[in-house]
């Protein structure tokens, strides 16, 4: 059976941390899009959800910062930044057996690390909270933060390897990339949004043309989309897994009070049932 859904969504901490700070005309499209995403996720009837999320200092520091890390455990805890996102710390069900199989399959093509004790921050927990889903989760943490983040084209390769792996499985797997788009997080520049960058990226993401972003210069990315723009890595991983499928934009809304160009999208992957 294999991959049954491929989605991507912003995880701006303000969505739950400061829900009423932006005008409703800006916040409602995002809440509504998350509701639509939940409907699509339920319709796909997955048995497990792979969440590709950036690292935000919940697990790794500059002494050892992996590019990609798969969490192999039957239980996780988070968010570590509960006051930042106003979501109480909770237990989240994992799926150790499948997580190990996923890591082994991906590692045939893409180097990665694994963790048997991973903490979740808002990058994983905020979308789960908004989607109100109870599926077991396999986390893949991607360094979009510091040290030496993987080149964007390697994040695409990660997605390709993920798809090749889960397509061999009987289990129904859904994939959710979280983060982005442009943002200058918790900085003096917070509230600035790279609308032009966001629209160009979404156009490529939704129309099977992500190749145009796979060699995007890092300094240009940061100038146009802020330090948070590096989180497009998780979207690019989803695009790699979806094999350049076209998609549907459920919302794009610049929300300065949440410091983020917020987007929610679903890709129309080809599947057999």
């Amino acid at each position, binding site marked *: 059976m294999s991959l049954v859904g491929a989605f991507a969504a912003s995880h701006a901490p303000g969505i739950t941390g400061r829900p009423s700070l932006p005008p409703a005309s800006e916040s409602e499209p995002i809440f509504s899009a998350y509701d639509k995403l939940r409907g699509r996720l339920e319709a796909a009837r997955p048995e497990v959800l792979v969440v590709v999320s950036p690292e935000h200092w919940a697990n790794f520091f500059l002494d050892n910062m992996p590019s990609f890390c798969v969490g192999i455990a039957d239980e996780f805890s988070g968010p570590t930044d509960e006051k930042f996102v106003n979501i109480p710390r909770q237990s989240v069900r994992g799926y150790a057996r499948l997580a190990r199989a996923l890591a082994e399959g991906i590692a045939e093509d893409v180097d990665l690390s694994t963790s048997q004790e991973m*903490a979740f921050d808002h990058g994983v927990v905020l979308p789960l909270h908004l989607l109100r889903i109870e599926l077991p989760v396999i986390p893949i943490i991607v360094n979009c933060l510091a040290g030496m983040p993987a080149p964007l084209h390697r994040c695409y390769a990660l997605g390709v390897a993920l798809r090749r792996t889960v397509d061999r499985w009987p289990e129904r797997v859904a994939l959710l990339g979280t983060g982005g788009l442009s943002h200058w997080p918790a900085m003096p520049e917070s509230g600035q949004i790279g609308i032009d960058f966001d629209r160009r990226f979404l156009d490529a993401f939704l129309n099977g043309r992500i190749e145009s972003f796979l060699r995007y210069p890092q300094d240009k990315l940061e100038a146009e989309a802020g330090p948070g723009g590096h989180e497009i890595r998780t979207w690019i991983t989803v695009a790699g897994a979806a094999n350049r499928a076209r998609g549907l934009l459920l919302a794009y809304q610049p929300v300065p009070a949440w410091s983020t160009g917020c987007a929610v999208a679903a890709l129309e992957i080809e599947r057999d049932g």
Partner: protein
Amino acid sequence: MSLYEVQKLLFHVNRDPKMFDRFLGERETLIAEYRLTEEEQRALLETDFRCLYEMGVHSLLLGPLAATLGMSFPDYLAILRGNQP
């Protein structure tokens, strides 16, 4: 190397509730366990977010800490921008 130590302390305080309790209850002792300059020690003792940001501490080590300390996000941004709320 010293900025590295400041960030390491904040990383520990943010992700480990026991370390956060020490940051609240015995901050001077905690700070003495890291190799910090006098200015870094002062900024941490006074939770001087603007100074910490300007010395190069990553913003996602500061914003969540401000929230955990009960500071609103707009107040945090105002401090970073040099406008006391």
